[in-house]
């Protein structure tokens, strides 16, 4: 199975994956060279550079062949003596995360202006885009780690330079937390590569070769898994190490929050799937109960704390913790539905939370406050914004017919067969999500508009255009998730087969409940149709 991943590598003549990294970098360079007198060109340059990248990522999705192979492979020797290579590739697991990053960046650039120091702001955003593209495409552990760490720098400067409130503190906390997490990951990477080299005689950091070898002793594998997991857990974030997230999200500029929620939180969960499960199946299985617990704690804790937030942006930040808890639950269910749901939910969360942050950013721009108590009755002044907010919020809650539902449903389905009682507790999270989001919506948009609230401007045309793609995706993926699911499925199935082959006495638990993923899709469809009537009003 894995060998098919290795051998089925399809190479294209045009190195499209390096281009996905190079175009944003070139754009950053161009922006750096624009003279200070022509500040008005900065945004349009950044926008076109990121849009071209987005177009390429969409082209990749269209040209992607629906099988479990690693595609568009591009590989160059990098540090020869270490066996590190600059190797990029895309499979069903990473495909949509690349596309998501591609789409979110132009939108984040279009939606909001930095207010001051435009030039460095756009440079950092483009560097961040290059890093986020690279991190999902890297198939070499060292390269992954490089991208994983390098995205910290632009994000750190974005939060610290253009954020609000106590931005420097938030930026530094974010940086140190993430770096501390990934510090041990480097040791883990070394352990895996060296441990495998002792068995096979070849020092390599290629994740597929390492996963296939499975050469580590159980103790060492557990140690390495924990080292990786610490790094990912901070990024996700899982509950004991989550405290950087509300600060960073709240103080970041809007574009920063969008990218942070949409792309960077996914690094952790993507890492768990791509590296955690793939490299250390047995260790991951052994520690799965721990992660179920942490995931469920995240779901409930995030929801409860979100409920009592006074700041709208902070509320969304905590809702992210809850959503990511679901994703963790799905990943450690270790069956096709769970992982597929988790992957889908990663994309969904990126879209809907990104959209929420953009909307809150606009409210803040107009009203200069995010205090829920200071806002009320915005619906009458800004009906279009209210409608958009409703739709995005319902998607975030997981209303059937919108994208959030499909992912959440698959996760719960997968998790139920793997960890029944945890799933039962997690379901309360769904209910709480409805509670805190609807309550917040009610306080902000309903009621009587007074003072500035009554005269707030509605969405402008350009604002409407920038949020439209996200709304389109929310509806499209809710009604017709098949194109996404079917591209993910082969890769996920291969992963699950890999897990089954390498975990003692483990067969996919999902098989008892639901026969095949095709059935899962039908189930989703049935559920959607059943719930069709509920959608649409607010």
């Amino acid at each position: 199975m894995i060998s098919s991943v290795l051998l089925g590598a399809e190479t294209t003549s045009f190195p499209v994956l390096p281009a996905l990294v190079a175009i944003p970098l070139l754009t950053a360079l161009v922006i750096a060279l624009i003279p200070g007198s022509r500040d008005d060109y900065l945004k349009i340059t950044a926008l076109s550079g990121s849009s071209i990248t987005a177009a390429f990522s969409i082209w990749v999705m269209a040209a992607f062949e629906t099988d479990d192979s690693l595609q568009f492979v591009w590989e160059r020797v990098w540090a020869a003596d270490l066996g590190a290579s600059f190797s990029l590739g895309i499979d069903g697991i990473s495909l949509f995360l690349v596309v998501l990053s591609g789409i979110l960046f132009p939108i984040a650039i279009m939606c909001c202006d930095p207010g001051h120091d435009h030039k460095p702001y756009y440079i950092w955003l483009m560097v961040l885009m290059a890093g986020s593209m690279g991190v999902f495409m890297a198939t070499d552990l060292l390269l992954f780690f490089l991208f994983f760490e390098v995205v910290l720098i632009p994000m750190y400067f974005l939060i610290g330079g253009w954020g609000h409130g106590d931005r420097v503190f938030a930026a530094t906390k974010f940086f140190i937390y993430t770096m501390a997490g990934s510090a041990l990951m480097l040791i883990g990477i070394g352990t895996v590569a060296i441990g495998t080299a002792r068995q096979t005689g070849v020092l390599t950091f290629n994740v597929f070769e390492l996963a296939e070898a499975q050469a580590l002793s159980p103790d060492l594998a557990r140690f390495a898994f924990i080292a990786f997991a610490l790094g990912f857990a901070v990024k996700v974030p899982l509950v004991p190490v989550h405290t950087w997230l509300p600060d960073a999200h709240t103080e970041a500029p809007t574009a920063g929050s969008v990218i942070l929620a949409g792309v960077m939180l996914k690094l952790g969960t993507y890492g768990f799937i791509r590296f955690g499960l793939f490299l250390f199946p047995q260790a991951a299985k052994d520690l799965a109960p721990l992660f179920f617990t942490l995931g469920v704690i995240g779901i409930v804790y995030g929801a409860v704390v979100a409920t009592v937030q006074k700041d709208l942006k902070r509320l969304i930040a905590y809702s992210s913790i809850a959503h990511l808890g679901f994703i963790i639950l799905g990943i450690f269910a270790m069956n096709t539905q769970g992982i597929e749901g988790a992957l889908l939910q990663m994309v969904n969360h990126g879209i809907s939370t990104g959209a929420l942050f953009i909307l809150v950013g606009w409210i803040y721009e107009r009203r200069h406050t995010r205090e829920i108590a200071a806002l009320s009755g915005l619906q009458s002044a800004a009906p279009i914004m209210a409608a958009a907010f409703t739709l995005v919020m319902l998607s975030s809650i997981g209303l059937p017919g919108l994208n959030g539902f499909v992912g959440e449903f698959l996760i719960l389905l997968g998790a139920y067969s793997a960890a029944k009682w945890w799933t039962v507790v997690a379901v309360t999270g769904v209910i709480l999500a409805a509670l805190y989001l609807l309550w917040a919506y009610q306080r902000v948009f309903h009621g009587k508009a007074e003072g500035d609230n009554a005269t707030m401007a509605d969405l402008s045309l350009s604002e409407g255009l920038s949020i439209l793609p996200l709304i389109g995706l929310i509806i499209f993926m809710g009604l017709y998730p098949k194109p996404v699911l079917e591209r993910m499925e082969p890769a996920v199935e291969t992963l699950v087969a890999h897990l089954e082959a390498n975990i003692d006495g483990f067969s996919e638990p999902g098989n008892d409940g639901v026969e095949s993923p095709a059935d899962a899709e039908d189930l989703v469809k049935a559920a959607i149709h059943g719930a069709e009537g509920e959608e649409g009003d607010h």
Partner: protein
Amino acid sequence: MLALLAQTQVQIPEIVWSVLWPIVLLSIGGVLLITATSISPRLRVGSFPAAMTIVLAGASLVTLPLIWSKVRDGGGQLPVIADAIRIDAFTLLVTGIMCASLIVVSLLLDDYLRTEGLDGPEWYVLLLMSATGGILMAAANDLIVTFLGLEILSIAVYVLAALHLRRTKSQEAGFKYFILGALSSAIFLYGIAMIYGATGSLRLTDIAQFIASGNSAGLSPLTESSLLLAGMAMLLIGFGFKISAAPFHLWTPDVYEGAPTPVVAFMASAVKAAGMAGLLRVFIVAFGVVAEDWRPVVGAMAILSVVIGAASALGQDNVKRMLAYSSIVHAGFMLVGLYAAASGAAQTGTRSVVFYLFAYAVMSLGTFAAFTLIGGRGDQNHSLSAYVGLSRSNPMVASLLAVLLLAQAGMPFTIGFWAKARVIIAAANGENYVVAAVAMVAAVVAAFVYLRLIVTMFMISEPDEAGEAEASGAQLRISRSGLFALGIAAAATMIWGLFPGFGGDWFGEATRALLELR
């Protein structure tokens, strides 16, 4: 009489001058420089001494590929002067570091001396001598040569540290450095005497052979000989002082703070690289066989260095002191690599240290170059507050310094990442998980220190806070040569960060020279 002379003629060893060009160029060039400027005082002023130093160092750099082709034809290692000196890839690599450091420091010093109103070729002569000493330390296959190299290196730097004749701080720094340095070289020397007593030889390769055969023959278990152990411990103290590893680091912050900043750049890059090179040569070549014996001590020094360095750096407000403590952390990282090399990962461990000393030389040169530029007249602006709003007043210097600081923090796509990653991979190879974990945690703490400086430069920009600093920033005169030096260092940081194999496999060859060619 003549017949008697002929009979007792001392056998003069054959010297292959053609591979000694860098040593000859730098030392003789230094002597010529001081002679020329004494004869013609006109040459004392102006940029002549700096230009000549740069030319000498540049010429030495140019000879390196030629020498390497000779050395490669000779099997990778050429014994010169009756095998007291070995010219191999490792020697050449350290020579390269010394020359690069000379060039960058001369670029800085030229402008520094002018603004301080000091003149004199003495600075450059001392730099040239010191660099020669460093090369000798790396090349030595004989403890006498190691000691001579160490002393030539050190004595020149004691003087350089104290050479700012009007700053009392500079003299104090020089004196402190001298007292502790002299004490440590004396202890080092005592250690050499012990080794000599235990093994009967001063030649590194002979010592190694003696220890090895003593082991295999089952005769006098030399690994337990107290003389040898005491000798190795004392050598470690001497080297530990030079590379400022804890617990022999106490001088570092004071001396870094007091000494003229270009000299600090030289101390952090060249002196530390030379000390580490000597340590590697002696402990890998001569004592590699008894690695088990010195391993725990090196491990303890490594852990102490990273922990003490990182923890003490946190509380500093003077950037030179901050970077002094950070240099202790870096020394600790190199020792982690050496510890791994002693724990069974000889190849990866040694190689990681070789790469690390190169990387640290590049990063520290750049960082202190920036500090020289920002320090301004009288080396005054070294408090953190002098860096407020620097990204506005001097965006170029601020960005380049940020690159170098991020490199020191081990951020990806900089040379610092590869240095750190190699050490950690080596530690994993030696199964030193605990040491590696401690080192990485300390690295995170140290990263906080660099971030603090970056925050000050880039993110504190409220007019009320920055008003004063921007005024001083406007006065800041950034010399072209200094900016060029800073640019070189930052470029090297990025080039080797993006292409870790840039320029061929020197590091692999240097490692091979240490490990395989005995």
